[in-house]
């Protein structure tokens, strides 16, 4: 055979091909591929517990033992640890292999409690399945089994039953290798090896839910799903997580029309199977009893339940009155980032075409200008394989957790060097090649001096550069960050940008049209106009300026000044409570459609359950309202909107129902977006206000998705001012004491937290946490916000 191949000139030998046989059948494997993977490619599934494709093999469980012959006769081989070799003969079905598999299973089951009937994993348990398919069927072990207290809570969300544990090292490896939170570990190795946390230091990782998903037995269970369902009663559909704009692929599982569990799907370009705990568990808010179930219309001081017909008529009347009173420019539509692309497109058409207002915007004053999307866009994969990533944005661990996992993995493997510009230490700081701390407002100077550094310049010239750009500080204007992004793009030709926008579908909403037309107002402008009494009708499509807009005072004045307010929302939020009409919108997993993540990837969203009460999808509400206003948008189903987007929105021609399945399709950058505004940054003197304010979000805040999910609601932290320990001394206070924090606007009393990750001379306050509102101190028109801190 080989002789003929050598004499034939056309045959190109793949240098990476390795010829092996698996159970006597020839197979071409890749060089360096593990036997277990090569066998899987050839259709031979080798049983395993500890092996996981996304983590380093450790050969712990020995379940994948097979016979391999590399020329010296068959030898028992751990197939997850051994790469293929030329002419290797793998036998996954030999009598020896079978005996070993039976032996390993008998040993693993010796101490396993076999409580499958009451175990949540029963029915989807690799141990149960493989004991059935590869096990001996009976045990010779008659002695007493190990006993442990069961289960113990290793975090607020995860319970551990050590009796069921088979010590496969998957959860501990995940915690250490993938999440970087090695808070669980093997303890008392030997006869009594078991997994524990350190006493009083729970497994409080943002990614703890993944350990439950990858546990091959029922040892780890998640609080929200414990004893809720049996796997065979679950229906499931693939969908996309819309909690943040990473757009992790998920499978949504339901039983009897109730959402019960969300699991990560391994999407190679996006999430590698991982989810953050917020994305995994905030589905609880969808079935919250506090959801608004039907439209509400204001009668006097109260919002009263109404029929859809009367509510739509009331809303249309409000818009008509507003148009009569102040013209189209007096109507503004805010929001759209919560829903699907279809929702955003229908609302953009309603705003721009039917009402005729240019004032439509999906961002809440906490992102960067939409023009960022018009810059050459990087994908997540390009970021994770770039030579250099310039990070000029928020703490990814807090705002875009799975993007953090991808970037952390790239930095850890030494593929990518991260140059981080941040006003405080972030989750990525310890993995960054260079951390450049800057005082808010001085990004450009920091960038200039970094670019002048020889080592940095050499690194930037070493290969592809991706700039991850977002809003690191809500208490400063976005101008300085934008200018710094422009600076690095000018210095590094060919650099691409990954917009680190946070809100679920904000990129999709902006791309399909939820952005101001020429002369239109953004959110800040809208609220300012409303405060001045120039907005006759304010439409909030899933927007809650009172809790989300950084400048609380402006939001309050804006909502008070708007003559009429229509809210389309899933909850009666603080802002919706001030509306004249509340239109009940269906939530995540209650409607199908498409979602666009931050790299522009359009994926599908599944309707897994019936909407709560009489709720309707936002696009439906927009279509009804348009019809009431005299225009037929022409939408009878969500598919109509999807195809309308493909037809009308530039770059979306390829977004078809087939294309959005699975990993989805990249929608090319919309060329209609305006380039970024050129604003010079003017930072004034500090005077007596000697601490520069840094305000940013943490993963768990009071957003409805978290606040209305019982498992997550208590994970918020207290609103407090974090100061560098030396600054605490300078103020003359102590950790835990209370201080008065004053801006030019007002004073707020906060607790003090000593936090060495805060830059000296700055004060960090997490946004939207229970307690005093930091938004009261923020002036969104100022380049930066400085505060004075006094003891009380």
């Amino acid at each position, binding site marked *: 055979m080989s002789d003929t191949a050598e004499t034939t000139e056309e045959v190109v030998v793949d240098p990476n091909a390795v010829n092996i046989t698996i159970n006597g059948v020839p197979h071409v494997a890749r060089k360096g591929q593990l036997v277990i993977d090569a066998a899987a490619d050839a259709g031979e599934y080798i049983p395993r517990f500890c092996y996981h494709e996304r983590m380093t093999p450790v050969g712990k469980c020995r379940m994948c033992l097979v016979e391999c012959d590399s020329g010296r006769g068959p030898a028992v081989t751990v197939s997850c640890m051994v790469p293929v070799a030329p002419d290797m003969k793998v036998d996954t079905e030999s009598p020896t292999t079978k005996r070993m598999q039976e032996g390993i299973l008998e040993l693993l089951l010796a101490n396993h409690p076999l409580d499958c009937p009451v175990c949540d994993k029963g029915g989807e348990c690799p141990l149960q399945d493989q004991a059935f398919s590869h096990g001996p069927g009976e045990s010779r072990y008659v002695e007493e089994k190990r006993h442990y207290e069961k289960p113990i809570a290793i975090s607020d969300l995860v319970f551990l039953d050590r009796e069921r544990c088979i010590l496969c090292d998957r959860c501990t490896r995940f915690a*250490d290798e993938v999440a970087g*939170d*090695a*808070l*669980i*570990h*093997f*303890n*008392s*190795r*030997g006869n009594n090896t078991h997994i*524990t*946390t*350190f*006493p*009083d*230091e729970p497994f409080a990782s943002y990614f703890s839910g993944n350990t439950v998903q990858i546990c091959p037995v029922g040892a780890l269970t998640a609080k929200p799903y414990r004893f809720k369902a049996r796997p065979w009663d679950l229906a499931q559909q693939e969908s996309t997580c819309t909690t943040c704009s990473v757009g992790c692929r998920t499978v949504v599982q339901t039983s009897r029309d109730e959402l019960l569990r969300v699991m990560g799907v391994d999407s190679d370009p996006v999430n590698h199977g991982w989810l953050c705990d917020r994305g995994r568990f905030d589905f609880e808010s969808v079935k919250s009893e506090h959801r608004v179930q039907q439209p509400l219309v204001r009668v006097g001081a109260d919002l009263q339940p109404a029929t859809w017909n009367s509510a739509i008529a009331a809303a249309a009347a409000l818009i008509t009155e507003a148009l009569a009173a102040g013209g189209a420019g007096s109507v503004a539509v805010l929001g759209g980032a919560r829903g699907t692309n279809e929702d955003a497109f229908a609302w953009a058409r309603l705003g721009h075409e039917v009402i005729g207002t240019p004032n439509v915007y999906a961002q809440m004053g906490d992102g960067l200008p939409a023009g960022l999307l018009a810059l050459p866009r990087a994908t997540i994969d390009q970021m994770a394989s770039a030579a250099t990533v310039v990070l000029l944005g928020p703490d990814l661990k807090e705002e875009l957790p799975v993007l953090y996992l991808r970037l952390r993995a790239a930095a850890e493997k*030494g593929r990518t060097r991260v140059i981080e510009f941040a006003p405080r230490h972030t989750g990525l700081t310890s993995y960054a090649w260079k951390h450049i701390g800057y005082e808010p407002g001085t990004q450009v100077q920091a960038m200039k001096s970094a670019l002048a550094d020889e080592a940095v310049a050499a690194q930037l010239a070493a290969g592809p550069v991706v700039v991850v750009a977002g809003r690191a500080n809500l208490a400063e204007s976005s101008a300085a960050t934008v200018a710094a992004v422009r600076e690095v793009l000018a210095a590094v030709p060919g650099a691409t940008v990954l917009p680190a926008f946070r809100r679920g579908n904000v990129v999709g909403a902006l791309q399909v049209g939820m952005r101001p037309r020429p002369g239109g107002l953004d959110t800040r402008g809208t609220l300012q106009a409303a405060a001045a009494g120039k907005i006759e009708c304010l439409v909030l499509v899933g927007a809650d300026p009172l809790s989300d807009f950084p400048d609380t005072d402006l939001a309050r004045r804006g909502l008070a000044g708007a003559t009429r307010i229509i809210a389309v929302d899933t909850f009666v939020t603080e802002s919706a409570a001030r509306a004249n009409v509340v239109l009940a919108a269906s939530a995540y997993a209650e409607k199908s459609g498409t979602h666009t993540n931050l790299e522009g990837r359009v994926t599908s969203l599944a309707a897994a359950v019936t909407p709560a009460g009489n709720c309707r999808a936002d696009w439906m509400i927009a279509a009804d309202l348009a019809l009431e206003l005299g225009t037929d948008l022409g939408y009878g189903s969500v598919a109509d909107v999807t195809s309308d987007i493909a037809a009308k929105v530039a770059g979306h021609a390829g977004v078809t129902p087939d294309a959005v399945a699975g990993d989805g399709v990249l929608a090319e950058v919309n060329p209609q977006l305006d380039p970024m505004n050129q604003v010079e940054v003017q930072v004034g003197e500090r005077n007596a206000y000697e601490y520069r304010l840094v305000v940013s979000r943490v993963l768990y805040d009071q957003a409805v998705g978290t606040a209305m999910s019982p498992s997550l609601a208590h994970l918020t932290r207290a609103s407090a001012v974090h100061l560098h320990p030396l600054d605490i001394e300078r103020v003359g206070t102590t950790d835990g004491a209370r201080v008065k924090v004053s801006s030019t606007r007002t004073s707020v009393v906060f607790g003090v937290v000593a936090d060495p990750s805060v830059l000296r001379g700055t004060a960090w306050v997490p946004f939207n946490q229970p307690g005093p509102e930091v938004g009261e101190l923020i002036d969104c028109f100022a380049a930066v916000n400085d505060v004075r801190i006094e003891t009380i």
Partner: protein
Amino acid sequence: MSRLNEANTLLAKEIIGRYPKARSATIPLLHLSQQQNGHITNDAIAHIAELVGATSAEVLGTCTFYEMFKMEPVGKYLVNICGTMSCQLLGADELMHHAEHSLGVKAGGTTADGMFTLEHAECQAACTEAPNMQVNYRHCHRMTTEKFDQLIDDLRAGRLDGDIPQHGTLARVRQVIPAEKAAGVALPDVPVEPAWMADGGKS
């Protein structure tokens, strides 16, 4: 409070400096902590984790692997009586029986005055000197019940303070590594070659 004291924290930093990766110093620091306190406490583990840049859970995992790191307080003197074959044949069981009676504790227990913890041990690699036992890992060869009583008396009276330090002390002489021979802390991806390797082992 049983974190490393000020002097030991300085020493710990010096020990960390001997290794290319800080966490390689975990076990030496656990020894240092046991020397200071006689056993390892959770506070000490948290402190060591801080010093070597690991999580407390990881340090705990390492610590609990080793029998000789004690997570509970032990007596000033840890008495390990070997019970493996050579010693057993030459009277280890009788010695243990006698020790339990004379100290008034079962194997694994600590005397009320906190002086002695009695333990059963596997082979101590002194079969020619059987029956063998150790006090704070210092060998006591060819033990008899009389020699045992004498030893306990001497320890109680402090007559052996010069020979047998209290539990946790590995050696009274600390290794001193000249700075130029220390590997030093370096980033894992930029290994710094220690001086003794660079010159081919001449120094």
